[in-house]
């Protein structure tokens, strides 16, 4: 087990740029020597890129992309809030588009490029959206935050790509960045702490518009 001393989260850890060590171990093998394993036909080899790095896994077909990230690649920035597409905490970017990682199978993503929160920025090198969330206190408990940030980054791209939303008044006019547009488009990311008002301000700042 991890030594107890290693798990303290301290201010020093926060400040020391090099202190955070990210351990990425090779994926589990499915063959369990001591137990009856799930059969070979029920697992599949899949290769995809995660945050720019190619990863090859042999996975039980049932493994969601979310669990592949969290339990196999130990990228736990992506959160499991509901596991049923009802909260948005697991939002990642698949080939640049946001998606709920809980409602897609990892094996369906052969060749895809996946970006998680860890791929956007690090504590010592924050993505502008991450920095704006800190500045505007766009979170409290922090559990929905990875999904909010991934979602907001992709959401702004959707507006730039002229994808309309439920509140877009004129479907034939270019999509605009307004507070109402941001609120509607971010509604797939629930924040029970209720940081919505601050999140909208953070996104608005990154989008380069006044709230």
């Amino acid at each position: 087990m991890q030594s107890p001393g290693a798990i303290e989260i301290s201010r020093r850890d926060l400040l020391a740029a090099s202190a955070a060590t990210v351990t990425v171990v090779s994926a589990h093998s499915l063959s369990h020597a001591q137990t009856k394993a799930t059969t070979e036909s029920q697992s599949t080899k899949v290769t995809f890129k995660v945050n720019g790095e190619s990863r090859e896994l042999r996975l039980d077909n049932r493994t969601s992309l979310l669990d592949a990230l969290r339990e196999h690649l130990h990228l736990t920035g992506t959160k499991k809030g509901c596991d049923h597409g009802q909260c948005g905490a697991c939002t990642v970017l698949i080939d640049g588009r946001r998606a709920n990682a809980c409602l897609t199978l990892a094996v369906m993503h052969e060749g895809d490029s996946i970006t998680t929160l860890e791929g956007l920025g690090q504590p010592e090198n924050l993505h502008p959206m991450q920095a704006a969330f800190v500045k505007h206190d766009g979170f409290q408990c922090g559990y929905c935050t990875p999904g909010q940030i991934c979602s907001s980054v992709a959401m702004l791209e959707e507006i730039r790509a002229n994808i309309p939303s439920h509140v877009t008044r004129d479907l034939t006019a270019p999509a605009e960045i307004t507070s109402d547009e941001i609120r509607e488009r971010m509604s797939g990311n629930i924040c029970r702490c209720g940081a919505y008002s601050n999140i909208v301000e953070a996104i608005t700042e990154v989008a380069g518009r006044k709230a």
Partner: protein
Amino acid sequence: MRFDTPATTNPIDQGKVVGKPIHRIDGPLKTTGKAVYAYEWHDRNTRYAYGYVVGSAIAKGRIRSMDTAAAKKAPGVIAVVTTEAVGELKKGKYNTAKLFGGMEIQHYHQAIAVVVAETFEEARAAAALVKVDYTEEKGAFDLAAAKDSAVEPEGGGASGAGDFDAGFEAAPVKLDQIYTTPDQSHAMMEPHASIAAWNGDDLTVWTSSQMIDWWRTDLATTLGIDKEKVHTMSPFVGGGFGVKLFLRADAVLAALSAREAGRPVKVALPRPFLMNNTTHRPATIQRIRIGAGRDGKITAIGHESWSGDLPGGGPEVAVQQTRLLYAGENRMTAMRLATLDLPEGNAMRAPGEAPGMMALEIAIDEMAEKLGLDPVEFRIINDTQVDPENPERPFSHRNLIGCLRTGAERFGWRERSKKAGARREGDWLVGMGVAAAFRNNLVLPSAARIRLDREGIVTVETDMTDIGTGSYTIIAQTAAEMLGVPIEKVAVSLGDSRFPVSSGSGGQFGGNCSTAGVYAACVKLREAVAQKLSFNSAEDLIFAESEVRSGDRRMPLAQAVADEALVAEDRIEFGDLTKTHQQSTFGAHFVEVGVDVATGETRIRRMLAVCAAGRILNPITARSQVIGAMTMGVGGALSEELVVDKERGFFVNHDLAAYEVPVHADIPHQDVVFLDETDPMSSPMKAKGVAELGICGVAAAVANAIYNATAIRVRNYPITLDKLIKELPEIS
């Protein structure tokens, strides 16, 4: 440190760090995925097994038998731990419903087995293979039906002053109404999760807990082991709102199954399982009677509340605020508790006041209208500076009037139509509503340990949790202020049972109490520094800019630790000031709504909260607490209801699709104003809480705004369109 006389001037009053808008120090971790939550602890040399819970399919009865043969044979399965095999377990002090063990079923989705396998997928699949044979019993699930059988709860809880019946009877203007609030769910974003690992008799549990020591104690009790053998940790908690106050099944199941499997086991409770397995805010039926003179002065006020719980549980204390919020010589409050076989009712954000204010503050609005008074003025007329049940007992500090006046001014209250249902903008009926906010200030002892090391780093250790409240940051601010060091030099370690026992996070006491505990430890450390540096007394020393100063004498703080680090530990304990003085927090909520004239959909247009809650330790994190509470209040007003299946005895809409909490599109920009004040009766920090104050009254302000918009008075929450649509105006 014993706090039993009002605080005088102390280093916190400098306000160089405390009270400043400092961004969360854990912000960079939380925004990059580096903050590690319970289910995410990972050691590369450990092979974790996965536990998946099986829940009861019935609400009440007994298990006749369990068949685990198929589950045990399923691929990857390591162990199946059943409630049958484990047998009766002791129940923790804070739990009403038992979490696991034995054959009795007390509520739907009670944990009855955990299946442990090599992978999550295998455990989940095998869990579905456990077969259970039940003897189902009839239960009581309907509060309205059980109301007449409700009894006075243990300890009574009735209160009064004067002669309520006579006073009410004699009042020239009267209100007598029934209000209901539904069962509600905390629905925090991080599901309950634990990893348990045994090393011989020693148990380590990474979990998601608001109260480290309560969990540690109750886990030891439940497992029948020595508390000293249990180590619990929750450095990051993905929200709680009360549902993580008390030990939950995931920790018990992880511990039991890790012992059975002989290796560390991870258990998370699946989202659709949470709402019936854990606790909820209980539904209430509330009767409020108010009598007043034509001058608007309340002469009689009575509030009764009915709620239900499992045997051994308690009532929802929804009458609490009515004892204190408004003047009036004839008073009465009472509670009745029915036995219900639903899941355990327990604390959810501002237990008591949250549902109580949902009712009371509609009643006040109704009464103001009967009297022809503006609802802001009616509240001001009936302000009291003393506990109305015990007039010799003053409030420590009370500025409800300031909140109401400031709020009315800022919100543009004078624009509100005095006539309900009179303002229309396009397809929207528009209205404004106001409600007072009120929540008592609770105090719990809290301890901390401070270390000043030779590198000049101050490390604070306390088992306090940060559930999104900003504990990391305000604790760092407190230590920085007390020791005169930059906040960057303060390291904060939280949520670990090896640290001194804190107040924990709940009841909006955590911010004030945990920082007061840090204050106490810092005072001790200052004494040690003074001694080390040969100052006569620590009392008149100034700690600033990493120096210690007394008169003309200045010494570098670092010199005190030139040889070795200094460590101090202390605990704040509270004396009788909460008895001699009523300590509460106050606020006012203003809301503007639009109600769609055709469909009755209500959408919030503007929100403002003004709070008077003692010293605000950090306006950024405090504001976040308040806007979050306002948001939850909107959910309570408009959509949140755990729907009871009265036949089968469970909450039907038990996931985040069917239990609708507010989303981004429901919440407009929110404004929060903190009145500049301190309360020297509350603690050396002179702070109180805001996290729960922020929800109290919000739903009623929404309800009152809906009334102002539509002239339809709904007294049963949530105010969904089906309760409005029959009375909306005719449309072409």
